[in-house]
């Protein structure tokens, strides 16, 4: 690739980054996206703990079945996050923009403010949709290696372990945001996972 082309591409990238920073300053979507990331990833992991416990207690001993149910659940919570966030965020941002347009008696849709509002909707929706999808798929990962591990029960154990480690990581992320103890927050989220596992195990459904 010619040097001039590379330079132009770099310039465009830098301009794009500058624009995003400006949109974030105007629309302030980073904080909302961060909250959505933690909340929905947490939802994704806990949902997957439910799926795993349901499969295990329901006597499912086929890795393919667990993967199929897990992926279907992941996609559903991903779509739910994306759709819900898009509808809620676009309604909220649209109302804010309309209010500002009414005060300033100006059409703001084709200004930096209008664009920042639209970018905020896209970013928050994507984070809302992708975070539960990715987090739940990570929990499911050990089942892809069941043929190598050789035991479906070990697959369940490893998946639950990944889920608890994931919850600990999410807790640490929240601890970092709050500026308090990382480990303390980590354990708090792990307890939520353990509670879900124990309640599922103790349910007298058989």
């Amino acid at each position, binding site marked *: 690739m010619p040097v001039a082309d590379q330079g132009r591409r770099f310039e465009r990238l830098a301009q794009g980054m500058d624009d995003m920073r*400006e949109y974030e*300053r*105007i629309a302030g979507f980073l904080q909302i996206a961060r909250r959505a990331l933690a909340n929905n990833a947490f939802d994704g992991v806990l949902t997957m703990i439910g799926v795993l416990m349901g499969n295990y207690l329901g006597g499912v001993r086929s890795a393919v079945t667990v993967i199929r149910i897990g992926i279907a659940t992941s996609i559903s919570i991903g779509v739910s996050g994306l759709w819900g966030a898009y509808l809620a965020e676009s309604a909220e941002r649209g109302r804010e923009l309309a*209010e*500002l347009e009414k*005060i*300033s*008696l*100006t059409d*703001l849709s084709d*200004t*930096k*403010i209008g664009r920042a509002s639209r970018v905020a909707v896209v970013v928050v929706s994507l984070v809302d949709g992708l975070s539960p999808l990715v987090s739940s798929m990570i929990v499911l990962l050990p089942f892809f290696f069941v043929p190598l591990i050789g035991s479906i029960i070990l697959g369940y154990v490893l998946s639950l372990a990944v889920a608890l480690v994931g919850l600990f990581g999410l807790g640490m992320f929240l601890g970092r945001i709050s500026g308090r103890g990382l480990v303390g927050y980590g354990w708090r989220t792990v307890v939520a996972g353990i509670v879900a596992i124990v309640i599922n195990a103790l349910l007298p459904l058989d």
Partner: protein
Amino acid sequence: MGNLRRLVLDVLKPLDPSIVTLVQLLADLKGVDGVNISIYEIDRRVENAKITVEGHDLRYDEIVAVIGENGGSVHSIDEVAAGKVLIEDVVTPQD
């Protein structure tokens, strides 16, 4: 046509983007030597700003476009000056 040297605009703009951003964007325009923005009224979401732009060859359309792009609307043009030298408003006995 004589070159535009000074422009004083009364603008209503949202609080974001801030006047710090706006003043720099205006100062970057071709033909502009300096810009001053002062706020004389502030509301919950919007503010009224007096924007003074001086230069050797101001482009009115470009200045208004930058203000518009940042969500502002020009309510009135309060002062203009053009020509080889900058002429200040003259105080007369009637004033």
